[in-house]
């Protein structure tokens, strides 16, 4: 037998052995980081679900994210659901699927929370609900959150994650950008603070409206933050872009973000900021 044949036999045997053993490993035990592609035993990502190699935070449901932030939460507007305004084919089925995957009526949870002793209006978008896309139901919920925060004199902390406008809701989705911007304006006019935390991914119409209208903008490491999809830009300019073109690390360098904060540190950092933002002001009566 020639050496070549030996190698061939040996390698085909090891491939089949490997497949045999791989089939015995339950899925989800071994995970790959979508950012740095490192593979690791899933428990190493820890309770915060962060890549042990590069610090990228895995996309998690809004409910799971809430648990990482606070135990004190009173939820608002839980029943809002889309009415399918453009009667888009198959949309109702897609919604039902997303609802069972996330245990949400649409892609955001909002409510009154206590973060490090400070009461805030808290919103968390869910990247797993049709890519966190912005539709009428989550748009309305975010709007009402800003309105309630204005009425109750609360600062807003909003965790953004979105693939952009929800295509299935057409012009209604586009109008959410103006509707929410108006609510942000009213909240700002009342002298109240708004902190945005950019999660992976924050793009499209959400970037082009409320995600970019905060007073202070934090971001999670390695999150994607941009307006136009990278593929569309590459097709437009006929050139490949580096993988990190729309990373928050680059956004930070370009001056659009105040600080990149690890997932674990976020509650503490919010507490630090709120202790200044919510401090008794000069000239306030006792």
């Amino acid at each position, binding site marked *: 037998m020639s050496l070549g044949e030996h190698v061939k036999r040996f390698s085909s045997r090891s491939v089949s052995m490997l497949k045999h053993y791989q089939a015995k490993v339950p899925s989800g035990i071994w995970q790959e980081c979508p950012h740095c592609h490192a593979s690791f035993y899933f428990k190493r990502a820890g309770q915060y679900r962060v890549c042990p190699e590069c610090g990228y935070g895995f996309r998690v449901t809004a409910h799971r994210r809430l648990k990482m932030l606070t135990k004190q939460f009173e939820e608002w507007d839980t029943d809002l659901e889309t009415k399918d*305004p453009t009667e888009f084919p198959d949309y109702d089925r897609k919604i039902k699927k997303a609802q069972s995957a996330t245990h949400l009526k649409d892609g955001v949870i909002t409510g009154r929370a206590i973060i490090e002793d400070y009461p805030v209006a808290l919103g968390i978008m869910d990247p797993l609900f049709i890519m966190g896309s912005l539709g009428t139901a989550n748009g309305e919920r975010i709007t009402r959150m800003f309105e309630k925060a204005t009425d109750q004199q609360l600062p807003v902390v909003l965790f953004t994650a979105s693939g952009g406008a929800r295509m299935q809701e057409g012009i209604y989705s586009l109008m959410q950008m103006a509707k929410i*911007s108006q609510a942000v304006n009213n909240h700002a006019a009342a002298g109240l603070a708004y902190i945005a935390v950019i999660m992976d991914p924050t793009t499209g119409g959400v970037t082009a409206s409320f995600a*970019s209208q905060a007073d202070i903008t934090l971001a999670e490491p390695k999150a994607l933050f941009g307006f136009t999809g990278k593929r569309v830009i590459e097709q*437009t300019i006929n050139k490949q872009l580096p993988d990190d073109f729309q990373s928050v690390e680059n956004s930070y360098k370009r001056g*659009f973000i105040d600080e990149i904060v690890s997932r674990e540190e976020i509650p503490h950092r919010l507490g630090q900021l709120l202790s200044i933002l919510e401090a008794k002001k000069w000239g306030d009566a006792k």
Partner: protein
Amino acid sequence: MTDTQSIIAGARSDRKANVYEIIDQLLTDFYELHGDHIVGDDPAVIAGLAKLSGFPVAVIATQKGNSLEDRMATHFGSPEPAGYRKSLRVMKLAEKLNFPIITLINTPGAYPGADAEASGQGQMIAKNISEMLKLKVPILTVIIGEAGSGGALALACSDQIWMFENSMYSVLSPEGFASIMWKDAHLADKAAKLMRLTPDWLLKQHAIHRVIPENMLTDGSLKTAMTGAIHDLAHQDVSKLLKKRADFFRRF
């Protein structure tokens, strides 16, 4: 051709590509202002001061252009961040001078270039939407041809939004929509049918205020209608005007 296809063809026709001609038909004494006075001058956005029926206005328009050179320079009417900054600068000037604002829109959307992206395309649109909603002067928008995505909305947070019969207003261009939904921009025709981007449907949803027959531009009646509408808006109390502008978007 279906109705939607013929509307899209009309919206994209060469006759609508040169907005200078449309400005000439509607306004007099047009004086064009240049640059965002920060980093650049985007030819996709034309801004200036003019008169409508003798009264002063500020006008902001997107320009595609007819020649190949113009179309390359304007990226077929797709503004860059500098264009949105120019627009905001002239809107703020109008507010200071108490001039009503007219925006004329014909854009497939904000330019999806790498430099535009890196210099804050999304952030500029977010800012313009926010600022437009606060402007203390009347704003009238006329959608001439295409109005796509946040790039159009950044010029359309207005008191009155009118559309020509052959024009379209949508969350994204049909090509972009097809690319997102089915990863194939060639399915734009299929997308257009589902997108409900036609003026009559949008009017029924109260997403716009009025549909304008094409001949109103040439026979001078559009100019008369705009004069009347701005006259009415200008006589409204400012807080009422802003409240109505906000309520219009609040209903969605």
